[in-house]
């Protein structure tokens, strides 16, 4: 966990309402796939949690959708050369076991961005089957990164690109054929629920990355909790954001 006053290298629009922000952290910080950062947003009291999409040496790339005032601030105020407060790396990240050689990656919406870091880390070492869902063709981005997968299926809700339907539907069409050892997923809660139901009873471990509103981002304030199935609370920022799907209430 480090507090860095990073230098913005690039902050550009890559799809409808989606931006890619690359910063330099001055020296290399080890980051695991699925970990995230808290990005400072000017006068906004709270930082915004954004997944690390790519980490190459001291260059770190985030992809974010403009949703409200904070992400709009990010998109409008950080130009190349400026400084941005970044706290990273945060959270547990994805862990791929030795024995898990065939992995399925199922993402929807902004959930595809943390999964790109996983695909990049596993490319060439694991057999990767990716299913990435977008609203429509205009929202589609970072396809060249996802293409590091052994097989990539793009899905759109309106059928304007790739498979017509959701990423989970596309994945379920293939599941018998690909027989994954583990599934890694991130996306809206209804999507995660659909995935949970779809794979129930198959004995395949499924790891999901969750979102929750955050205060500190480091595990101290207990603002970001989720319910575990055993009745306890877990902190999404510190104990997560990645959980085994059976471990959390969705």
């Amino acid at each position, binding site marked *: *966990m*480090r*507090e860095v006053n990073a230098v913005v290298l690039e902050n550009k629009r890559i799809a409808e309402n989606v931006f890619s922000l690359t910063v330099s952290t001055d020296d290399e910080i080890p980051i695991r796939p699925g970990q995230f950062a808290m990005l*400072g947003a000017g*006068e*906004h*009291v*709270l*930082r915004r949690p954004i997944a690390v999409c790519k980490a190459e040496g001291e260059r770190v790339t985030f992809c974010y959708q403009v949703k409200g005032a*904070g992400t709009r601030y990010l998109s409008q105020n950080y130009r190349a050369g400026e400084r941005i*407060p970044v*706290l990273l790396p945060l959270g547990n990240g994805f862990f791929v076991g030795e024995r898990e050689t065939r992995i399925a990656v199922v993402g929807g919406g902004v959930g595809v961005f943390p999964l790109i870091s996983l695909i990049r880390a596993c490319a060439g070492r694991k057999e990767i089957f990716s299913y990435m869902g977008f609203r429509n063709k205009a929202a589609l981005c970072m396809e060249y990164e996802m293409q590091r997968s052994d097989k990539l299926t793009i899905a759109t809700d309106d059928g304007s690109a790739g498979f017509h339907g959701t990423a989970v539907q596309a994945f379920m069409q293939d599941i018998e054929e690909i027989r994954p050892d583990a599934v890694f997923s991130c996306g809206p809660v209804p999507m995660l629920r659909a995935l949970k139901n779809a794979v129930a009873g198959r004995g395949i471990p499924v790891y999901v990355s969750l979102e*929750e*509103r*955050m*205060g*500190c*981002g*480091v*595990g*101290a*304030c*207990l*603002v*970001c*909790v*989720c319910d575990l199935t055993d009745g306890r*609370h877990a902190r999404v920022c*510190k104990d997560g954001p990645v959980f085994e799907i059976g471990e959390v209430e969705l």
Partner: protein
Amino acid sequence: MADLSVTLCGVTLKNPVIPASGTFGFGREFDEIYDISCLGGVATKGLTLEPRRGNPVPRIAERSGVILNAVGLQNPGVESFLEHDLAWLKGKTRVLANVAGRTVEEYGRICALLDGKADFIELNISCPNVKSGGMAFGIRPESILEVTRAAKSALKRTPLIVKLSPNVESIPRNAAAAEEGGADCISLVNTFTGMAIDIEKRRPILANNTGGVSGAGIKPIAVRMVYEAAHAVSIPVIGMGGIACAEDAVEFLMAGASAVQVGTANFTDTLACPKIIAGLNEWCDRHGVARVSELVGTLRLN
């Protein structure tokens, strides 16, 4: 290099900067970012007799210059703190054990468990009293007197700080009630009760509907309240509410606070506390102040 140390109730802190309760856990997470032994002390997350689950999410919302929170006192309970965290934290810095109860008796029992162990007890009295229709202990002077007496009689060795709520009629009267009940020190302010509405959904953002407002936007009100409290009692006062930089801390010291707490600013910048400590040193040097304690209560009214 100014002398930043301050002495509160006979206990010396290396500087007057203390992360505020609920924003810093028991210090372990922030210690992964910087060595927290640089701090004057740490106010722990509110401790209760039994573990508490707290409120449903969302527990936080943001507005201009402020946040609202409704964590609802989630904590592992005082026993777990004593077993797993206190010794570690004491090895780093001074410990202000923030405690909360549902009844006057509960406050007494928690204080007894922490007596002689923590450096200070900080009594969070902004919690509902289940035996008097759920009104917070910290609203009326009579109930402040009662809960302070109960806590004080359970404490033989550890000084007692009573943390005042700002959601009240009269800060001077409530501060005086805490002093009369035996408080060794007062801290303020806790959060202001507020609401934030998602106008698309026509619903409050917080699952709890209302939450405590904190952050830079409350600072002028907090400074006024600290000034009022400091002039109503002869025991020391710890000031807080929106402190984000050394200059903010100086304002509180001048208003009469002997030390300060920093809450929400830890979220905006995890290094807020060490930066405030460094900034206080620079400010004192620039202004020819040899000891930071010389600033306390030096405000002159117009």
